[in-house]
């Protein structure tokens, strides 16, 4: 049966040579079964024709649609026209910016400015600006014997931990340092000059 079906399909597909075709036709004439199968397959193939009845408005509107698309393609918008151009140029600019970073003297200028400030600012100015806020005179620190008391006089950001603050203070040094307040600017300058002549730094 399967062989017969394949023969029928080969016959319908025109895959037989003239001799095979003649043999098959003779066989089909003598076999009712083959003849019926062949007829039913042919009928089936005929029955599965594709329906082509459709809404004609689609075909009426097709030509204007195509014309419109063609017109759009002929006159693309400016943006579309330069789409590839603008995107390529933008990508190029970004790449160039990465490759050839503009030379800025920002860092160098900043360093130079910092150095100038450091060199020109006087010690007095520094002490006035940055150490004037110290509420504690070194001598008053020495007068407090208890570490806890000393800690209360230290700025909040200084934490001595377990170290005894009184041990860090040497009386002689404190005395000398405290005495500096009593000198005038002229006297201090004289002292500095004489120290300079001794090459003491």
């Amino acid at each position, binding site marked *: 049966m399967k062989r017969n079906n394949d023969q029928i*399909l080969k016959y319908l597909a025109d895959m037989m040579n003239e001799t095979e075709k003649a043999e098959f036709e003779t066989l089909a004439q003598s076999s009712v079964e083959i003849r019926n199968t062949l007829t039913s397959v042919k009928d089936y193939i005929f029955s599965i024709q*594709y*329906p082509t009845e*459709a809404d004609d408005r689609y*075909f009426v509107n097709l*030509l204007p649609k195509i014309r419109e698309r*063609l017109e759009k393609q002929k006159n693309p918008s400016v943006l579309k026209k330069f789409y590839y151009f603008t995107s390529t140029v933008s990508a190029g600019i970004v790449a160039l910016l990465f490759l050839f970073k503009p030379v800025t003297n920002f860092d160098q200028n900043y360093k130079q400015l910092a150095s100038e400030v450091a060199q020109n600012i006087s010690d007095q100015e520094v002490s006035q600006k940055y150490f004037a806020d110290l509420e504690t005179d070194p001598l008053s620190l020495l007068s407090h014997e208890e570490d806890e008391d000393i800690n209360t006089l230290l700025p909040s950001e200084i934490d001595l931990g377990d170290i005894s603050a009184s041990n860090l203070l040497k009386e002689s040094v404190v005395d000398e340092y405290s005495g500096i307040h009593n000198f005038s600017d002229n006297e201090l300058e004289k002292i500095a000059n004489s120290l300079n002549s001794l090459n003491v730094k």
Partner: protein
Amino acid sequence: MEQENDFDVVKRFLNGDETAFNLIVRKYQKKIYWHARQMVGNHLDADEVTQEVLIVIYKKLRTFNFGSSLYTWIYRIVSTRSLNQIRKRQIKKFFSIDDDESQIEIIDEKDIVEDISNRERLARLNKILEKIPAKQRQVFIFRNFEQLSYDEISKITGKSVGGLKANYFHALKKVLELTNEKE
């Protein structure tokens, strides 16, 4: 006679007569649409293919050298574009997260086949045809629906007649098997 007419129309187009293109569209649009429809199995894809093909015809007609009939040349374009559309849809389907049912609903809403029994017949036929490999389906459609000879199909597809016969044999076999399965 048909070829002579086509020859004249193409000549007119090549001489700058834009209305000649309208004649070509009116003459071939239905054939183009229905071939695409049989190949791709739904209206939306068939519409896309039809429009693409007509635009390609307009643009490439200037290069048409009458090496074959206009009819064969047009069928060659439709055939290639339909196969491309099938491939495109397969790729889309592979990456899509939508279910098939929702897609079918969208397609049905815009279908130009209005008659319900025709629509049902079409749906049944499409379900069978979509299970056949695209190349076999192509030959089946050319032979069965377009009633073309193997020689004509060979000119369109560029395949040997022997190969086309084998394709048709397998397509026919598969169609009959699938129909019997359904019954």
